[in-house]
């Protein structure tokens, strides 16, 4: 049997997804037994021109991480879609926008202004912004167009599978690689490398059904390492987050921030969390409920930490 051809690409990403693949450590040698990697900018020196020269469908599986922030991301997404039999939205940025998706709380011009004019480490008295086309004495240079909004991979191309996590854990990546190598892929559109339970279902912290009179910021309390974080008044997103990470944050006494996204059937993780919160707040009157809920700092940025572009909101107005 000929070896599988694999590719991995990053659009608006941090490289953490690529490093998570490398975190399978020595199993990368087993991977090399069954697969040839034909494009992987973080690790190997293939160019866009190499990918363009591949026949359509040449790549068996492409793991695409990162959000679509600019025209280059969209262009490469379309190129890799054309060249790949199976395209996986790999990691939370590709699926819902991820941390770069927080930019949808801001306006495009405010971002450019902050970065290129206002930031303390910038000296730009001529107020020069990046241009999509720029003439230099030797010819013309081009930069991609910085879009108004961050988009998800599935907004610009057809996606076969979704693998959540910021980043997906190495154990889940290895499990998925084995499934890919076996050829027994699930039905198109499935979420892979995760569970369909919630993080709460897999959490070992003790839940007593205690209601919350006040929400705290983590530094305001000494966290009990055995008890449910939400019942202690921390905004843990466990009730609305898909299990699969091995409860990494909650095991470290940190509330979950929802990076594995919602479970199947939930279209808006943040909205679902608001309804989950309603059932834990201990308020006798609507005014008291208001007071308790308004103790949560930056609710939108917390409940949509990894998924604003992929949510029903998509962006702040």
């Amino acid at each position, binding site marked *: 049997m000929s070896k599988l051809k694999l590719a991995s690409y990053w659009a608006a990403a*941090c490289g*953490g997804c*690529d490093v998570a693949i490398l975190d399978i450590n020595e199993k990368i040698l087993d991977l090399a037994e069954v697969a040839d990697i034909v494009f992987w*900018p973080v690790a190997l020196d293939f160019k866009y021109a190499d990918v363009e020269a591949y026949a359509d469908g040449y790549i068996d599986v492409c793991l695409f991480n990162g959000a679509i922030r600019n025209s280059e991301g969209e262009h490469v997404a379309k190129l890799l879609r054309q060249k790949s039999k199976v395209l996986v939205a790999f990691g939370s940025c590709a699926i819902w926008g991820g941390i770069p998706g927080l930019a949808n709380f*801001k306006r495009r011009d405010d971002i450019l202004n902050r970065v290129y004019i206002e930031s303390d480490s910038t000296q730009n008295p001529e107020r020069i912004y990046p241009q999509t086309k720029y003439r*230099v004495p030797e010819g013309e240079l081009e930069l991609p167009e910085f879009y108004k909004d961050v988009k998800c991979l599935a907004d610009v191309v057809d996606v076969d599978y979704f693998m959540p996590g910021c980043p997906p854990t190495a154990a889940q990546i290895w499990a998925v690689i084995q499934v890919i190598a076996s050829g027994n892929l699930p039905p198109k559109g499935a979420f892979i490398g995760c569970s369909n339970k919630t993080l709460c279902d897999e959490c070992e912290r003790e839940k007593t059904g205690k209601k919350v009179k006040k929400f705290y910021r*983590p530094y305001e309390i000494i966290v009990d390492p055995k008890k449910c974080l939400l019942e202690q008044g921390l905004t843990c997103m466990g009730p609305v987050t898909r299990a699969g990470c091995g409860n990494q944050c909650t095991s470290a006494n940190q509330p979950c921030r929802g990076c594995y996204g919602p479970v199947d059937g939930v279209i808006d993780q943040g909205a679902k969390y608001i309804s989950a919160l309603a059932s834990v707040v201990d308020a006798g009157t609507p005014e008291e409920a208001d007071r308790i809920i308004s103790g949560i700092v*930056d609710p939108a940025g917390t409940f949509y930490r990894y998924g604003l572009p992929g949510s029903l909101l998509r962006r702040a107005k």
Partner: protein
Amino acid sequence: MKRVTIDPITRLEGHGRIEIFLDDAGAVENCYFQIPELRGFEKFCEGRPAEEVPQIVSRICGV
């Protein structure tokens, strides 16, 4: 004038492109380094609680 484009620059975190212009003798006349990617952490960290920022900015570079 000949133009050599290195796109993308690989084996580093992030996105980069190099445009090299050669003169008729084949020597480098000029060279431009471009960074096509911008995410805007400088702006979208505004409004986030201070204690959340370490987890957010750790996604500037995960390499």
